[in-house]
């Protein structure tokens, strides 16, 4: 019986299943357990088929697609500027970073450089989003491993970020704030005040999370040595973001392939070489501190000037011009009936999201709708590493391992 099931998993599993140990003779038969798609700790609608030898995991087969939204197909049916709205919704924990990847890709294809103030505002929104994304990870991971309090602290502070999103863009989550050609609107004075207050409060809030977890013996017992992903395997399996940096590899797209002027800021890449869940926890905590540091510099050095490129073919003219200029009316009409058309070609742009490399590959055929938009998502790649991380651990540790990958199912299934 055990033999037969193993053969089945060999067929259905991934390449790394070939490294799976077979249970020793006479240790009983493998039990196959279905985990999800509705489960409180799978971070969404992830389904995992787990082979158990007693309580020890001998095989994991993720089954995805339960949140397949057809986003890439939808974008082919929408015009270039309409597509921004859809990009928000694939990785729903970091909408402005998705917008940024798409906007940078369209701008790269069209050869546009946005003004410095827009660059700085993009950095501010990206870093706020990174903190917000890590806070969801922190809150839910804590909740799953029995630390209910952390959830409350994390969501208290996340609400502040969402209030800021609402102030600057009018919406709490799906801001669509970063658009090809610049940003939606300039930052309001109230937003800058809120940001100032947030930057002052946040370090002590991160101290609070650390007080609750970093030296907590239960937290350490549940995460240290669990879900090991050695650096070599992390690179081989294409891991990025905290998954890679938690394995001691110093790779961050903000440093290594800078965009939006990240090279101007003074900050450090958070790297830990524990290769386990605890190391990835430390990486995320330190990343939040570094994000606050970048926010401080971005706010202090926020340049003046426009927040959009001065290109009537790409962005609508200001409202007051419509009353006086026929040309402005024509541009406005053309933009909202037909849109703009980047030149034929294809580009790939990657940005660093809270989960890792969030890339956007676009193909234009010179018309006003994209030929192809592909999102390279970190979660999709990280799920493939789940089996390697979980192998040989107890089923109860599996919760910590799923949590540490920080997958967003919208990002996996798109």
């Amino acid at each position, binding site marked *: 019986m055990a033999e037969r099931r193993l053969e089945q998993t060999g067929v259905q599993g991934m390449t790394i299943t070939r490294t799976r140990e077979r249970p020793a003779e006479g240790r009983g038969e493998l039990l196959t357990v279905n985990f999800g798609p509705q489960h409180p700790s799978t971070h969404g609608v992830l389904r995992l088929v787990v082979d158990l030898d007693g309580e020890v995991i001998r095989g994991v087969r993720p089954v995805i697609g339960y949140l397949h939204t057809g986003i890439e197909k939808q974008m082919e049916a929408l015009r270039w500027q309409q597509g921004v709205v859809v990009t928000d919704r694939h990785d729903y924990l970091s909408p402005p970073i998705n917008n940024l990847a798409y906007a940078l890709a369209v701008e790269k294809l069209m050869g546009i450089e946005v003004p410095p103030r827009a660059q700085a505002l993009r950095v501010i929104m990206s870093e706020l989003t990174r903190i917000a994304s890590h806070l969801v990870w922190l809150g839910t991971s804590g909740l799953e491993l029995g630390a209910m309090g952390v959830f409350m602290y994390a969501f208290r502070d996340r609400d502040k970020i969402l209030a800021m999103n609402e102030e600057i863009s009018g919406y709490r989550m799906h801001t669509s704030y970063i658009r090809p050609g610049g940003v939606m609107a300039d930052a309001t004075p109230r937003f800058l005040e809120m940001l100032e207050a947030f930057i002052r409060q946040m370090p002590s809030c991160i101290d609070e999370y650390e007080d609750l977890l970093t030296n907590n013996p239960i937290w350490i017992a549940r995460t240290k040595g669990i879900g090991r992903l050695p650096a070599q395997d992390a690179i081989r399996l294409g891991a990025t973001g905290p998954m890679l940096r938690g394995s001691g590899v110093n790779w961050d797209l903000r440093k290594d392939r800078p965009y939006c002027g990240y090279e101007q800021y003074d900050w450090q890449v958070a790297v830990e070489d524990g290769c386990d869940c605890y190391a990835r926890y430390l990486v995320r905590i330190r990343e939040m501190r570094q994000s606050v540091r970048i926010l401080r510099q971005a706010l202090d050095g926020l340049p003046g000037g426009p927040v959009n490129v001065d290109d009537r073919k790409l962005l609508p003219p200001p409202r007051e011009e419509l009353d006086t200029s026929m040309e402005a009316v024509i541009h406005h009409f053309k933009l909202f009936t037909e849109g703009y058309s980047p030149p034929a070609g294809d580009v790939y742009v990657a940005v660093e999201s809270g989960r890792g490399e969030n890339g956007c590959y676009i*193909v234009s055929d010179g018309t006003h709708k994209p030929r192809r938009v592909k999102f390279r998502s970190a979660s999709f790649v990280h799920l493939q590493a789940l089996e390697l991380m979980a192998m040989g651990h107890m089923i109860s540790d599996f919760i910590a391992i799923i949590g540490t990958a920080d997958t967003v199912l919208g990002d996996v299934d798109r």
Partner: protein
Amino acid sequence: MTPVKLPEDILDHGVIAGDEHLTVARDRIRETLETLKAQGYESYVFMTCVDHLATPVVERPPERFELVYQLRNMRTHHELRVRVFVPEDDPRVPSVHDLYGPANWDERETWDLFGIVFEGHPNLTRILMPDDWVGHPLRRDYPVGGEPVDFSEDHETWQSTPPEA
């Protein structure tokens, strides 16, 4: 340009909007990726497919389907895009899942959404769509689907097969 020694039998090599790319023949993809991997392009970023059905581009692509492999050298920070054109009537490509780990799911996804067959893949099954789904949704001749919406200016093309197909 690139500091790497390029494989000999490439069909095209160039730069679009700052992205370097090269095109190889379908049966040379494994050798090309092996050569590039040996030269430091160890990081596989993504692989996907583009459907060029009825493209309005003047310089028409040689075949309907185009596979795109994005590779990265983590030491020199260079990126390279490898293209392979695949004909519509014989959509077969050698699998590279053993060269690059993450290619496994990308190939399954490309099979699921475009119907490209990866020869040598251990488990080429649907990954995003339900197992009993008919058709490959990301092909250009597959309608976007959904329901008609009043006041939507072009829902005809959404609900039905596009005219170019």
